[in-house]
């Protein structure tokens, strides 16, 4: 017998016995004897092994109930694996991050339209922010948005290509939802980035907290205002202003509180909508927030709703895009499932035809998102002040914004020997930016010509100096802002009788293409009206029905130039 034959003959029993022993050692049910849980999605039954270990998860609402849809539909991984390591292979704990969203929230059968749109939205890539920053730093001659202006196109592995890019990466990029969220759970006011999760994550409900089991944050279409606050309490600070909160200097005697991040605040009059119980998504439609698929640079281009959509409901609106109608129906159904009142009437529609699905045009009511209460939608008054000739270019916000956050100066210093967290690289990198705000406060906004050609509120955006870089910057920039402080209209005198430079700045630049400061000729016209407002203080005064004709009559009577004629009139009244 050859040695090979011995091996061959002995190998067989050794292997057979070895396998038998191995099988017996692993046992009849090595994966536990619990049966394989099943879920049914879109009519298809699917094994969901995740629930063998995570079946006690609580906190998610009916829309994402794990007992109905499992875990792997959102978190991926392998629901058919029978061991922990295999099951977690390819899993994404934070399923809403935009990089993974096409395979999770945005997969076919779930929310593909929304994921596609939000990926192109300004919240994802912040194109306008990047463009304006490059303009501010003098790296560009215009704030016009270029295709390269997208935070997601910045290379995390490379050092910033310019001071503007460095500034954005270190101070601004964390908010933008294309930035991945890295910590699980609800970080509240400190929450940043996270794609779909940025808005649609809610704390588990109280009912769920009372049940036994591990808690998972809720994921819902019912986006609470607290989700918006973390980011929108900065920069334009609309989330603060809406509720009458203003950021102040620490030494300001009006300080009466602090934000969760430690900034000192005071209080003043809130927006009328806030007083009525509105929250952000009571006005802002899903298409305005997640975009409608167009790539735009700035909020004014993205926002879908305008004041007129509710307050001038008789205006003609375009037909509703099919996808918007579908989403509105889904949202109404979701609202009913959460216990909201049944709304069946024709809704108000935005300028782009998006249904504001929680409204009923016939009864003129709107149901508020957070409280479920019905409020009356108030139509704009058919009063003379809304038809005054010469005011055609005024936006609603120009008159109905009594105050806006004002920041008199901003000093930005770059320290190349320090280090700071880079929100694109997600790591501490060399160089640090330090901002020193000055004169934080609030007051009536400035007025200038907005990017759409209408007179609009503007604020400092910013009056700044940037030092520590090769070409230091010192410039005065004005930015259009809807401060979300809607109230009764400003009085005529606040625009026509004040020192014009304090209302209509003449020096500086604007931060939007198409926007500009009021010209000298326009300023002169405003001043002329102001001369009359001193005596003709009521808007219903016959002088203002058609001010141009009133002025011509005065010129004819006085046989003088417009300016002299007004001056002589002033004098006569004064005497």
């Amino acid at each position: 017998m050859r040695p090979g034959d011995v091996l061959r003959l002995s190998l067989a029993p050794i292997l057979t016995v070895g396998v038998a022993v191995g099988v017996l050692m692993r046992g009849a049910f090595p994966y536990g004897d619990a049966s394989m849980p099943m879920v049914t999605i879109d009519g298809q039954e699917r094994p969901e092994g995740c629930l063998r270990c995570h079946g006690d998860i609580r906190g998610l609402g009916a829309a994402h109930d794990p007992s109905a849809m499992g875990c792997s539909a959102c978190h991926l991984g392998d629901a058919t694996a029978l061991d922990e390591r295999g099951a977690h292979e390819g899993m994404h704990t934070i399923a809403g991050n935009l990089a993974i969203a096409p395979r999770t929230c945005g997969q076919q059968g779930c929310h593909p339209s929304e994921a596609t749109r939000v990926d192109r939205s300004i919240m994802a890539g912040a194109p306008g922010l990047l463009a304006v920053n490059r303009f501010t730093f003098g790296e560009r001659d215009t704030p016009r948005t270029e295709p390269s202006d997208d935070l997601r196109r910045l290379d995390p592995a490379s050092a910033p290509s310019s001071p503007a890019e460095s500034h954005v990466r270190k101070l601004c990029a964390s908010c933008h939802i294309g930035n991945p969220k890295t910590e699980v759970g609800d970080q509240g006011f400190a929450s940043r980035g996270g794609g779909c999760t940025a808005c649609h994550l809610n704390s588990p409900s109280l009912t769920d907290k009372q049940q036994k089991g591990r808690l998972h944050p809720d994921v819902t279409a019912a986006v609470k205002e607290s989700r918006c606050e973390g980011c929108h309490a900065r920069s334009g600070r609309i989330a603060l202003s809406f509720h009458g909160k203003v950021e102040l200097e620490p030494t300001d005697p009006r300080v009466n509180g602090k934000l969760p991040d430690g900034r000192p605040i005071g209080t003043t009059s809130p927006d009328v909508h806030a007083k009525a119980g509105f929250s952000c998504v009571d006005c802002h439609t899903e298409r305005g927030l997640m975009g409608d698929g167009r790539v735009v640079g700035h909020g004014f281009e993205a926002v879908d709703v305008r004041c007129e959509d509710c307050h001038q409901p008789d205006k003609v609106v375009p037909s509703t895009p099919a996808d918007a109608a579908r989403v509105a129906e889904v949202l109404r159904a979701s609202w009913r499932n959460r216990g909201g009142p049944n709304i069946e009437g024709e809704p108000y529609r935005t300028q782009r035809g998006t249904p504001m699905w929680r409204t009923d045009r016939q009864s003129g009511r709107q149901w508020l998102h957070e409280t479920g209460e019905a409020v009356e939608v108030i139509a704009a008054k058919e009063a003379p002040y809304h038809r005054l000739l010469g005011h055609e270019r005024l936006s609603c916000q120009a008159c109905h914004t009594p105050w806006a956050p004002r920041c008199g100066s901003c000093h930005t210093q770059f320290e190349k020997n320090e280090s700071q967290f880079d929100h694109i690289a997600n790591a501490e990198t060399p160089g640090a930016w330090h901002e020193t705000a000055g004169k934080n406060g609030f007051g009536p906004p400035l007025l200038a010509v907005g990017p759409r050609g209408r007179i609009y509120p503007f604020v400092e955006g910013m009056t700044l100096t940037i030092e520590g870089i090769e070409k230091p910057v010192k410039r005065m920039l004005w930015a259009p802002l809807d401060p979300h402080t809607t109230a009764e209209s400003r009085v005529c005198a606040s625009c026509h009788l004040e020192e014009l430079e304090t209302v209509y700045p003449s020096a500086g630049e604007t931060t939007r293409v198409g926007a500009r400061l009021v010209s000298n000729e326009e300023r002169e016209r405003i001043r002329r009206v102001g001369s009359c407002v001193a005596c003709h203080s009521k808007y219903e005064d016959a002088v203002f029905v058609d001010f141009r004709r009133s002025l011509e009559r005065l010129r004819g009577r006085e046989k003088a130039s417009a300016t002299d004629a007004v001056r002589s009139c002033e004098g006569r009244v004064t005497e």
Partner: protein
Amino acid sequence: MGDSNSKTATPEPTPEATPGARGWAQRVGLPALGALTLGALAICVLSGIVVATGFEPGRPATSILSFEVSRPYGWFFRALHAWSAHLSLIGLVAHTIEYVARRSDRQTSAGNWIALTASLPVVAYLMLGGRALVGDTEAGGVAAVMHGLLSAVPMFGPAAADVLVGATAGGDMHGLLIHHVATATLLLVAIIVVHLKRLVPDAIATAVALGLAGGVALVVRPALSVTPMPTALRGPWFMGGLRLMLEHGPAWIVGLMLPAVILGLLGALPLLSEARARVARLVLLVAGVVYSILAAVAGWT
């Protein structure tokens, strides 16, 4: 599939049967490749019968998972079925390469040689069909590729695809199941009987095959992954070369003509003159090496 250990040795001279000409596997103390392949096939068929008792063609992946989790030793029988099938395939291919490399085609009757050649596409169909029957995410892709390739055959291709794979690739599994457990398996057994003139495998070779396949089954669970949104479908390892070729060439050439030419060349070896057979062997060996490289690249990427 030749077998030197059989007391009823085939009258055809094979590498194992030729005195002094020990096969590759035998040189390292293993049973002959042919015997090992037949043993693995026997284990595959027997374990397949056990697996089939828990298989539901209407809910394939789910029923397999339930079989693994809830049936006593179901996990082992499923794994044993899968890995013994892989061992059969590897053994058959190695056995064929050994025959070609050692010019055994010259010592075998044409009928016997053609039977060996014919077993290759049947085993390929059984392997691919078995993967498709798992009914997971990847299985749908495998069934679609099978259906697409068969449909590319002119004239009767689409009809044959419907019969052999099912009209809805990856959907209705009844037809595929019947062919997997009955038609194709019986056809393979018939081919083996023609090739070996025997049916019962060698006990030692079968025990070794059980040791090899069972050993792997103890530690590696065969693929089954119902992933809602897979990043990529790679297919089983033996399909890797085909996948790469299909990515870069028309299906009817790389998926049909090329395999048909290779098989035709292999089957025709005993009929060719020695000079032509030498060239043909070289072509076949190069093709085998190239496919192996492609499969390795596909597995790596």
